[in-house]
């Protein structure tokens, strides 16, 4: 009995990994600050924990602040990655704005810029 209890406690102490509890942006494609020649077909954001796709939004704006994405959103990677379709982007600077709701209902937001080169 006592051995089982020790094993249980030890297992619990060892098993947990880092608690995140808020969805932070871990990876973006195109990445923040990127200068690229080939216009991307999608913007793809990977968060530190699964998000609720229904309440996670991405918006891509051109240099004038006009929204230019197609609005077609999809989730993958166990709910950690959300992608948004883009039309063929002409050269210029683009701003990606995102709002994420993690599965534990916490909210985060951010933005970044990338540039399509001629």
């Amino acid at each position, binding site marked *: 009995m006592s051995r089982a209890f020790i094993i249980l406690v030890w297992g619990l102490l060892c*098993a947990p990994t*880092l608690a995140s509890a808020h969805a932070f942006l871990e*990876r*973006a494609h195109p990445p923040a600050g*990127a200068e*690229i020649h080939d216009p991307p077909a999608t913007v793809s954001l990977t968060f530190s924990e699964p998000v*609720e796709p229904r309440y996670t939004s991405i918006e891509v704006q051109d240099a004038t602040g006009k929204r230019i994405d197609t609005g077609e959103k999809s989730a993958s990677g166990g709910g950690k990655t959300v992608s948004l379709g883009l039309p063929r982007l002409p050269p210029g600077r683009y701003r990606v704005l995102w709002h994420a709701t993690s*599965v534990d209902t916490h909210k985060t937001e951010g933005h970044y810029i990338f540039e399509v080169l001629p």
Partner: protein
Amino acid sequence: MVSLDIVRIGVRGLHLAALLAAVGTLGFVWLVAPVGLHSRLIRMGRGFAAAALALGGIWFSLQAAVIAGTADWAEWAQALPVVGLETRFGHVLIARTCLLVLVVGLSGRTRFGQVYAFIAASLALASQGLVGHAGAADQAWGLATAEALHLLAAALWLGSLPPLLLCLLVLPAHGSREACERFSPLGLAAVLIIAATALAQAWPSIGSLPGMLGTDYGHVALMKLGLFILMLVCAAWNRLVLTDRLDTVGADRARYWMTVSVAVETGLGLLVVLAAGGLGSLPPAVHSVIVWPLHWTISAGALEDDDLRRVVALAIIALGVAVMMVACGALVLRSRVVTWPLALALAGWQGPTLSLFLVAAYPTSFQLSPTGFTASAIVRGDALFATHCTTCHGAQGYGDGPGAIGMRIRPADLTAGHLWDHSDGELFWWIGHGIRGPDDSLVMPGFEHQLDPMARWSLIDAIRARNAGAAMHTGGNWTNPLPAPDIPLVCRTSTADMLSQLQGRFVRVVSGSDSVSSADVVTVRLDRATGDAVPASGCQSASADAWLAYARIAGLEPERLGGTEFLVDDHGWLRALRRTGQTPDWDDGTTLSDTVRRLRTQPITGSFGGLHVHKQ
């Protein structure tokens, strides 16, 4: 909005408290209560389950408004079914509602109904981990299981206090004592599981002493710990002092105090649950900005100096003897006339020496740079250095700028090794608020109003890159662990967009020339111009910032960087630099493999910029 958040957090806490009480009461019926009280306690358990049901509905409604970001009642009404059907939170709350309806319906007089009601209520409670921090973590099963056990143990202790109180109020003296004695082993096991699972959950969320003392999450956790300790004191008093007196002479008085103590313990338990609700609504300390509340912190720096080490050793021995003298005085009462004054004298003599372990600290001392040490941050910081720092610190950072002439205290030499004794957070404070001299006057002005926080963090990256470059230029190596500046990539054979995404493999960064590919390393070619084609194997970084940043850490002018190579290990640390024509030749696959193998056996164990790092 703030008050609505407080209401939401409070409702969540009360829902959880009612759920704990329902599970605890039904468990108490099963494991502790005399048969005569079963029907009353079952009614009590059903009442708690009904309260949990109602409070859960209110919590769901309030949380749905937050999740959907509703602005008015119409939007809120539309959001309810969407949140219920399309989010994990909604799924868990619907399942929990079904379970609680079963509990209210099943908690009848039959043994079968009692057991199934207890199981259903326990499942409803255990599901809390799925909608809290634990359920969202990587490998959530570990934390969610720990949280489920934590909650079930809390239910068997805290949730059993209301039925225990009822026993004390209605049972005769002998029956009260029996109920308390049957409850004791259950409570003790529950406390042990609560303590173990709390540790398992708290440490990944808090991470460090600064996280505990310098964040809202840490403060609420400390408050919860304090309440838990008070509950333990009540429980110990009940068990060790009062229980044995319940059916002896003076039983009425013992029962009175036992009732008061259990009522206080129940109130404290409710506060613990409300604190837990607060923790669930706050970002964990490891992801919060730490604001260090003290003017000092503990540092083992004194042990690095031979002379100080001897002084500290003497102090520790003297204080150890003082402690032993106090213990002797406690054990042999007659000796305390001699031992305690001597102990006091020793403590007064050597106690102040321990202040050698204290160093000045600032509110930002334990904050970490958010820049990620990117090439862009270094280049931005370099530009800021030129406009804000060179007047005093000089163009190269030696502390010899024209503004330094005549200064009472010479500006710091930012190329000196001493820079690495300070965390990014300390540098951030000094850049923002200035540095004061021994007479408390400002010897360096603060730039809080000229430079926004990101500019100050970028400046720190640039200062560290300059320092590393100076060490490489003069000594031929980096004297402190240095991460490879992160740069954007375009790869043909990898999906990586940034250099940091290649962690797990060795990377060879080559400035402006093609190189032979190797199975052991990924090759990244730095190009000054964006027109060059991406290498057939490996990656390219055509960012101008990348070129400038790598020139900076190599201690070279940008135009002389071409041909220089860097080797980055699988944890992202810069491990070696090779200039054009130097040996060994990394184009020789065997030589490069040998180098990689050697570096793998010598991992870097230091830190960069802060006292808390995720890298090895």
